[in-house]
């Protein structure tokens, strides 16, 4: 068949398809969506015929464009979150954390190991703090948690509007750190390991120092509540990063590229869970941890309950098949 005849015969159909595409692309009218796949496959056949018969580049290129646009409308990757956020929170996220336990364990050891290690070191050898953290920052920390001052967190009396300021600050600062810890895992895991270790070091050193100089009560009662979410979130972000790095180091039977894509797909879900954790942590930190009216014993009790809740959530949520679905 000559090209002009072919074009004349199918022109109307192609024009109708173009109109249908435009409607779909603007998300307007989906009433004719049911017939779309059939029309799209006919168009694919036309393109194949046109190529096989050596028709002109203009015809083939325009058919190719139509097919490409149709392909974009017809085929999608199924999104694994967003669609059922509740299912993700109730079951998929803790399941994923348990499935990736080697990375979670490694990241946990790096982070909490360095945290506890440096806390005890600084507690035992108080001068060490000045080798780890600049003296000005140490002074800031001390004034922040000074029990005599009678307020917590940042300096100055905090009104309700200030809680809001701190909420914004915590969200930006902490989620930024978690994202960095995750992303730098792409460098063969070295970046994540570094950030886990480094953050553990700083937090540990501050904790050890403040306890040693007798500010323990104000410090621990402040951090215990949101720490449950914040610290485990950093460790999980590190675990997601280590998973990326490990996929590059030991891709198994896949090529490195494929292994990386595969690992990244799971890691990004972990990062979404981490973001959620950090939002909760920022909320607690701004509105509960900083409350000065609450006595330390109550804060310790609530804090312990939150740690237990996080542990129970990560260990047990989503074990039964039927619950969330």
């Amino acid at each position, binding site marked *: 068949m000559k090209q002009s005849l072919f074009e004349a015969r199918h022109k109307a159909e192609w024009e109708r398809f173009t109109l249908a595409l435009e409607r779909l692309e603007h998300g307007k009218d989906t009433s004719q969506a049911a017939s779309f796949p059939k029309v799209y496959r006919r168009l*694919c056949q036309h393109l194949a015929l046109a190529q096989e018969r*050596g028709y002109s580049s203009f015809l083939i290129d325009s058919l190719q464009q139509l097919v490409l646009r149709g392909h*974009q409308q017809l085929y999608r990757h199924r999104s694994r979150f967003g669609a059922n956020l509740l299912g993700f929170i109730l079951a998929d996220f803790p399941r994923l954390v348990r499935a990736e336990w080697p990375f979670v364990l490694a990241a946990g050891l790096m982070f909490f190991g360095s945290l506890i290690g440096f806390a005890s070191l600084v507690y035992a050898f108080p001068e060490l703090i000045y080798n780890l953290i600049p003296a000005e920052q140490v002074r800031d920390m001390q004034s922040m948690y000074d029990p005599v001052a009678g307020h917590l967190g940042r300096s100055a009396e905090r009104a309700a509007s200030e809680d809001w300021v701190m909420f914004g*600050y915590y969200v*930006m600062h902490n989620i930024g750190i978690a994202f960095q810890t995750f992303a730098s895992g792409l460098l063969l895991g070295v970046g994540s390991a570094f950030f886990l270790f480094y953050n553990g070091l700083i937090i540990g050193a501050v904790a050890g120092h403040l306890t040693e100089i007798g500010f323990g009560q104000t410090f621990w009662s402040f951090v215990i509540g949101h720490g449950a979410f914040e610290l485990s979130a950093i460790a999980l972000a590190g675990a997601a990063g280590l998973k990326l790095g490990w996929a590059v180091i030991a891709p198994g039977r896949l090529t490195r590229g494929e292994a990386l894509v595969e690992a990244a797909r799971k890691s990004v*879900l972990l990062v979404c869970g981490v973001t959620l954790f950090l939002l909760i942590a920022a909320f607690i930190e701004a509105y509960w941890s900083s409350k000065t009216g609450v006595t330390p014993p109550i804060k310790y009790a609530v804090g312990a309950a939150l740690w237990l809740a996080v542990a129970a959530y990560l260990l047990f949520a989503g074990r039964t098949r039927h619950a969330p679905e």
Partner: protein
Amino acid sequence: MLENTALPRKAPLKPPLDTRYQVETPEGIDLPLRPAGLMVRSLAFGIDLGIRGAILGVLFLLLAFLGQLGMGLGSLLLFAVSWWYMVLFEVLRQGRSPGKQWMGLRVIHDDGTPIGWSASLLRNLLRFVDLLPFGYFLGAISCLQHPTFKRLGDIAAGTLVVYSERALLRPQLPDAQPRSSPVPLNLGEQRALLAFAERQAELSPARVNELAALLAQPLHISAPKAVSELNGIARGLLGPT
């Protein structure tokens, strides 16, 4: 008979010589995508950077009047704009951030499907690594050595930045008397002849004559009238002879 440089009918397509990237669809069609290189991508990024700066500047000026509340909002906005600007635009506007739209680019999955939340989030989170150690150094290296110009974030997320397709204008074929080819032509040769006719308006007359003269001898057509003869054959391929 021409030298058989073109492909035989049933041969699988060779990978193209240029940077086009073929995606095979489930229907057995090869879709060519045109990945965008480092330069145009950095320009697009520069535009986006400028827009983000402008947004933040204006918002901070407005929020300064709100005092404490404004400061809290400001941090949240800084967070939202620095980490979510790209993601939101890419997912909600068919892979186009304003900068990419300006430069005629879009992001898609490397199997040709539109980009989704998870891939977009990944490629933009991993931007942090591409930025290392300064000014997109790793990203640029990765982009330059990769056959489809992916930066590290694109490799991990399985995404591709391509030129968006532009509307094609039907080329005007030069007038000529349709005739059939004196020698049988294979597929590639047919397309080459048609392309010669379709693209004639873009070429200088001297170049047109030069190209046509090359074909006069193997096609057994008269050399002085080679151009009109070739146009005739092209018309003959299109329509009735």
